[in-house]
């Protein structure tokens, strides 16, 4: 069995993040990291591979040169090999373009043996669109709707996911091959240990360009354009009180004064 886990290198959400004049996210701040929920995706892929036995986990990413750090982290956690799609024409891709490129890369991975399962995180902390998992499943013609999983199990050539949605709890099942996206509640991601970090150095990272994948840059042209972007002004007239016994009453008075009750 082969499992592809798609991961993304994103600017650290604890750092100051900003948009450039063209509305694109500044990605070369030097404080990038593996997207948090993608750690859960890698963990899910590794656990499933361990349960199945004789399974291979391939980590896949796309993005500028630094993005290789995302798959390196996955290799340190235990993935067996990695693919990095690297091409200047990828800059400024939107979620749908990203899905098309990842789909082409997964098809190319499948040339070396069938891919049974694709695992992703449910959202990336930079764009936060959450569009890529469903778009990727659609591009690959895989069963839809296996997103936001809080539990993933494999049995008898099928995958079962439990989902906790806004208004309902749901269990879905679909035959492999399939794609699932996991939520940050799905598991507790492991930290790479020393042996894992050492072993990762010897694991292969294959680099593919768009030409290698047979993707025409015109096919991934963004369908949206940022007209303008500006940092939000800080909130004005802020009040901070330390409770000396009457802060609750002060809070009530504030709410009444500002017509919030």
């Amino acid at each position, binding site marked *: 069995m082969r499992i592809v886990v798609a991961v993304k290198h994103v600017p650290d*959400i604890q750092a100051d993040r900003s948009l450039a004049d063209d509305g694109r996210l500044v990605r070369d701040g030097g404080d990038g990291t593996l997207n948090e929920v993608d750690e859960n995706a890698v963990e899910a892929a590794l656990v499933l591979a361990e349960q199945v036995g004789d399974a291979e986990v391939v980590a896949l990413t796309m993005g500028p040169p630094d993005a290789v750090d995302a798959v390196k982290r996955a290799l340190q956690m235990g993935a067996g090999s990695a693919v990095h799609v690297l091409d200047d024409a990828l800059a400024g891709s939107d979620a749908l373009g990203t*899905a098309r490129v990842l789909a082409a890369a997964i098809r190319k991975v499948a040339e070396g043996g069938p891919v049974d399962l694709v695992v992703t995180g449910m959202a990336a*902390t930079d764009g936060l669109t959450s569009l890529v998992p469903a*778009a990727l499943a659609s591009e690959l013609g895989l069963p*839809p709707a296996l997103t936001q999983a809080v539990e993933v199990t494999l049995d008898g050539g099928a995958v079962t996911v439990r989902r906790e*949605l806004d*208004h*309902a709890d749901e*269990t879905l099942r679909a035959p492999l091959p399939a794609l699932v996206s996991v939520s940050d509640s799905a598991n507790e991601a492991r930290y790479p240990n020393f042996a894992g970090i050492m072993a990762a150095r010897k694991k292969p990272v294959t680099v593919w360009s768009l030409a290698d994948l047979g993707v025409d840059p015109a096919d991934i042209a963004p369908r949206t354009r940022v007209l303008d*972007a500006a940092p939000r002004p800080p909130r004005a007239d802020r009040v901070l009180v330390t409770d000396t016994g009457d802060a609750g009453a002060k809070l009530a008075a504030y709410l009444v004064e500002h017509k919030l009750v």
Partner: protein
Amino acid sequence: MLVLLDHADSGALRPSALELITLARSLGDAEGVWVGSAPVPLEALAGLTRVHRVAVPYDEHLASAIDEALSAAIDATGASVVLLASTFDNKDVAARLGVGRGAGVVTDADAVALEGGRVVAAKTVLAGTWTTRVEVVAPLAVVLVKTGSVPADEPTGGTPEVVEHTAGATHATGLVEVVERTERAGTGRPDLASAQVVIVGGRGTEGDFGPVEELADVLGAAIGATRVATDEGWIGRDAQVGQTGVTVSPRLYVGAGVSGAVHHRGGMQSAGTIVAVDIDPDAPIFEIADFGVVGDLFTVLPQAAAELRRLRG
């Protein structure tokens, strides 16, 4: 322009649907899309010219079934704009419309306008710290609008005409089996995503949501939680406010024992007024709070609730 009418299995409209209708009517002629077999509440949908009720050959909750239903309505109407509530489920639907129909998709919009024939959506990004305006350059625009961004008007105007459709069957959708689905009963409080007032309990509650509930009763508020609180099992995961949970944009947000980690701020920073009560004076939430109280939520919240009850008589 089409509006997806999210509803419960009973046919009760989600509050977000009324907001979308108000928004769509401010932009032009609006038609609704109703997926599945639940009864259509026509009176609540006054103002829409038509409602396209689409029967789907699969479980009507599947994103792909909703995608197929919207596609049928787009084919029938030639619509160039589709508005949906910005939920994770609807993001799956929008993604499929993006792949299947070449649509340009904007998620988490808080305003939508037509400028020179193009759809322009405003949204905040990077955990609410930047605002952007995004133009859709594809012929079909799919915009997911954050619940609570547009106050819903009372429905006015004539009752819409109902047009019946049947969506096609796709191979991939037929592969998914819904083993189990349980719609959760309401909590008796307002819907978290669309509530005008939201009180969130965090680590500082230490699992005791009593003071949060007491103040929520007085304010008619929905109750949310941080990821720590849901991970600890103090409250259901559906209450989680943040980047991977529910995004809220209420008039008033109250954080009780909430430190204000970036994940959480990303889901609440566009609130009108932010109130924070926390014991730690260095909690990052105080950097964005309009009214911050450094103090013990177990004394501050009950005192505020009592004072509000007294003021109301």
